[in-house]
């Protein structure tokens, strides 16, 4: 059983960077609080000028500062109870200045996170060497940051496990996503027992995506964790505050991640959603969609029309499929429901008044020949004829 994760939000800070007006910022904080707000990193430099507002949960905000006494005092005056002091490790590290800033923070009764921004550039031993240049008694947490996106999940796990053993202070992890590995690295950190991790809604600003970590923690690491049923909607609101849209295919929260188009997938999902869905869409407040486009099969069309109480027979489904595919290819996108209904009525209208004699197969063959002329579907001969013939023989 892993220790439950504690998330350090980076989304609100992005709002500050974008100079959101106070009301908008309060709205952003409200949406994030509804999703989940354990802690949030806030740039003290950007926070100046934001009036004290009782709505803002200052106890959860950590002031991000440089290792300098004035900034520590400023953070304290602005109401921060924790500072996140950013340090770049290098050969000529000014450990004296850091020491002074740390001591000031302690005098003011602040909790201190010492963030090593470029930690992943160093081997564990070298990093410990750097960290031990300062008095760790003044540090509550060391934050290992992979700013250059230099880690893969296995290196993350190994490094953090080793650091955890060798450092006497709490560890925290912040991944960056320039190589698309931030979520995986964060999960590796959680596996290594580092439970405080940075994340941003939808992974904005190249941080690990909060919702991906949350769901992967629950369903891939099989650990209990609460997930709001409004996750997708709230994430959309959060991005909306920042003037952005959730990409349709964004894992977990994108509007299309439970959309199924290809015949083989739709056929499967209709039979049993577990076949092509890793978890139920309702968990995050999304719903399953059957997309009708050029990859669709007759099963999709029949399911769609069944849901409208207009059951299609095999023949009409095969016929409509041909028309639908042509349309999808010409407009280079899937069809919406209105288009689908229109095409159906257009098709039935064409075939209305068509009366043919003979048995069922004979009528269908004639109807089919007519549709070839109308829609030019030379190779759209529905397979069902040959099947029916066989069964009649």
């Amino acid at each position, binding site marked *: 059983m892993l220790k439950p994760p504690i998330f350090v939000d980076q989304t609100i800070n992005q709002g500050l960077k974008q100079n959101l007006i106070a009301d908008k910022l309060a709205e952003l904080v409200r949406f994030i609080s509804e999703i989940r707000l354990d802690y949030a990193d806030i740039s003290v430099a950007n926070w100046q000028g934001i009036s004290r507002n009782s709505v803002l949960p200052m106890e959860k905000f950590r002031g991000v500062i440089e290792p300098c006494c004035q900034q520590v005092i400023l953070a304290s005056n602005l109401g921060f109870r924790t500072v996140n002091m950013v340090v770049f490790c290098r050969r000529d590290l000014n450990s004296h200045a850091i020491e002074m800033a740390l001591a000031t923070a302690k005098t003011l009764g602040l909790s201190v996170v010492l963030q090593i921004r470029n930690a992943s550039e160093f081997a564990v031993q070298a990093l410990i060497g750097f960290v031990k240049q300062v008095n760790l008694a003044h540090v509550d947490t060391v934050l290992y940051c992979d700013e250059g996106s230099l880690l893969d999940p296995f290196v993350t796990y190994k490094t953090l496990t080793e650091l955890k053993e060798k450092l006497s202070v709490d560890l925290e992890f912040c991944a960056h996503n320039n190589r698309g590995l931030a979520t*995986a690295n964060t999960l590796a950190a959680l596996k290594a027992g580092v439970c405080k991790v940075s994340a941003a809604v939808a*992974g904005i600003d190249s941080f690990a995506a909060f919702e991906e970590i949350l769901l*992967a923690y629950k369903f*891939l690491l099989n650990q209990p964790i609460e997930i709001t049923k409004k996750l997708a909607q709230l994430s959309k609101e959060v991005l909306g505050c920042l003037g952005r849209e959730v990409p349709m*295919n964004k*894992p977990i929260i994108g509007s299309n*991640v439970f959309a199924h*188009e290809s015949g083989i997938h739709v056929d499967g999902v209709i*039979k049993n959603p577990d076949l092509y869905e890793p978890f139920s869409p309702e968990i995050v407040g999304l719903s399953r969609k059957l997309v009708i486009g050029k990859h669709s099969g007759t099963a999709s069309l029949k399911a769609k029309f069944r849901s409208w109480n207009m059951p299609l027979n095999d023949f009409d489904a095969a016929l409509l499929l041909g028309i639908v595919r042509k349309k999808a290819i010409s407009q280079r996108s899937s069809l919406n429901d209105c288009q689908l209904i229109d095409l159906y009525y257009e098709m039935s209208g064409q075939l209305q008044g068509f009366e043919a004699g003979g048995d069922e197969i004979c009528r269908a063959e004639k109807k089919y020949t007519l549709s070839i002329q109308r829609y030019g579907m030379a*190779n759209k001969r529905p397979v069902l004829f040959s099947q029916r013939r066989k069964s009649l023989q």
Partner: protein
Amino acid sequence: MGQEEQEAMKLILAAPLKATVFAWNRARSEDIMASVECGFSFLHISIPISDLHIYHKLKTSREKVLKQLEETVNLAKSFGCQVSIGAEDASRSSAEQFLQVAELAARLGALRIRYADTIGCLDPFKTYEQIAAVSKLCPIPIEFHGHNDFGLATANTLAACQAGSQYISTTIAGIGERAGNASMEEVIQALNLNGCRDPHVDTNKISQLVKMVNKLLDRSNGEFFSPNYKTDVDFFQGLHKCN
């Protein structure tokens, strides 16, 4: 396969590509015939291998699925085609179930077998464990095919390579069903981490390619990309300069 798809397939085959183009087939004779008629000589034939897919989707038995695979591979071979095998939903199957298909595939003369994480339910640690377990015993090379449902497709693909997978499936800009597949540009960046830089990849052209796909799909509003996509491309260009 519809007429429009056949036309598209023929156009792809006729394009002056350096790549070997495979046609994706279900293990059905009509699929094989359609691919052969288009002029393909490399066919990928896919069968589901998890109990869930065999019993709940196909509603058949494992024996029947394997028999169907054997028949369709033989049919493809009768036209002189080279074949690769796809093991759909391999990540929810046992190593034995995968190896059973791999051995049959090898016996039938298949070039390689695809290990598909069809619903994206692997994490990198499980990927490594599962691919390492099968790659030791697999008689033909393994191709890893990841999906991005939990945002782990790139990491899983990297882990599969580290565990011995010799081929990987990627799509430009990560397009694909639901949350997409492993994106080529991210996987290349991830592989660079471990010093696996492929000298044949022209890194200079990657961002152009991504932009082109974006434009062709009419996704200029970024629908298909993560919000940090722009950073990614800039980062990639930065990498190129460093190299």
